[in-house]
């Protein structure tokens, strides 16, 4: 800028006052502008072209204001998937009847007195079977089609309530 002072600039402007573009210049101006713009664009790598187009598109639609909704929906879907997986992976309760040993740990006597008495209702000491043959015959077909109960109780069956002999 130092080599041009105001006088020189004024002189150049006076010289250019009478210059005219060639005929058809303005009619062809827009076409020529687009052609040069495409030439400039094709010199860039493809990824940059895509990026710039996407960038322009996003700004044109103002996607930033809409971006929170899909993110929220995605988060809800992920949580639901995790919870449902956890529920379905829990083991199912066994259908085999077992005596609960925890019941045996109940206090034997509410007065706190030490006793040999059974803390829970226990089986009655007896040596004969519970049912007669007539009664047992009625149950013979009851178990058909059902998996058997594989026997191994969690507590022994034989207890005494006192040191008596």
């Amino acid at each position, binding site marked *: 800028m130092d080599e041009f002072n105001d006088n020189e600039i004024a002189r150049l402007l006076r010289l250019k006052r009478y210059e005219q573009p060639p005929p058809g210049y303005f009619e062809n101006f827009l076409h020529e502008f687009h052609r040069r713009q495409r030439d400039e664009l094709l010199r860039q790598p493809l990824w940059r072209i895509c990026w710039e187009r996407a960038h322009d598109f996003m700004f044109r639609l103002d996607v930033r204001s809409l971006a929170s909704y899909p993110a929220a929906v995605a988060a809800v879907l992920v949580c639901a998937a995790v919870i449902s997986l956890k529920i379905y992976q829990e083991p199912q309760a066994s259908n*085999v*009847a077992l005596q609960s*040993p925890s019941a*045996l*740990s109940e206090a*034997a006597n509410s007065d706190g007195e030490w006793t*040999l008495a*059974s*803390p829970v209702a*226990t*089986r*009655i*000491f*007896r*040596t*004969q*079977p*519970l*049912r*007669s*043959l007539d009664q*047992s*015959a009625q*149950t*013979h077909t*009851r*178990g*058909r089609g*059902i*998996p*058997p*109960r*594989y*026997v*191994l*109780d*969690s*507590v*022994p*069956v*034989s*207890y*005494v*309530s*006192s*040191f*008596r*002999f």
Partner: protein
Amino acid sequence: MGFSFVAVPLFYAQEPTAITLSQQVKDLFRRMANAVVKIHGVDEHCEIAGTGFFIDPTGTLYTAYTVGGEADNFTIEFNGKKYPARQLLADIRSGTAILKIDAVTPALPIGKSEELEVATPVVSIGYPLDLPKTPSFGMVAGFDRKYLGRYFSTTHLRLNLPTQRGEAGAPLLNMKGEVVGIVVSSLENNSSCYAVPIEVAEKIRSDFVRFGEARHGWVGINVSEAPAPVEGSRAEMTEIMEATPAANSGVKPGDILLQVGRTKVTQPEDVLDASFYITAGDTVPITVVRDGKKLTFNVQAEIHPASERRPLIASPTINRAIPLKLDSEGRRTP
């Protein structure tokens, strides 16, 4: 250097021991598994399945009370065939039952549980769930008289031996292949279990042979802990019940109990094992201390009041009482 000289021979010595042990278990399973059978039955709720084992060549088998006690319509899987079985006896006090099939069968030899000690290796063979015959290896963990605050009717063997449902009634074998117990229940996480000593089942079988039923006897004496030991015993007789064999035998409240039969008593808990093997009708010598003097009274046991009702089934031809004196063999009280 000293450590390495010691450690290296130890390492090589352990390896053959483990191989030998494994070989013993394999051999035992191969020899004994044929006498172990799967038992099917029907109880009041559903079909049940457990394990049992033959004890004589005529098809008599032992199992747990929970398998053979309260069910019926028994079927035994043996040698690939199914045999109908009948219940000879079921006894909840011992936790055992005796079944029988009509066939010629192999039989497991009966051992002595009194030879067991803590950490003695043992093997059981059972039918877990719907799986085939399976051996389990473990060791004796203890001899318990009570569990979760309740007293057993007699000492039970606690075993560090993994068990599964379906293995109730499985035989507990020592490393000689003799039955020393019957698996009756599992513990918390199925890594341990309880077994009754085989003598318990043998007592019941002896009763069955003599009387056709289990005959638990008693004499009618209550025992509690004495404030101070006398002659090494803290078992004090606190009550002599009326209208019982003990009432007119001469024993008195305040006597310190020293011996029942051949079983020495040092604390009230010892009465459990001493009394379990009393059979109604037998004469039981009871030794006490009174005023510093040792006295022995012979008392004829009566049938235990809780087992006075007669069995509804099992009416064999052998049903005659053969009274014995209880002075031949002592019972183990670990």
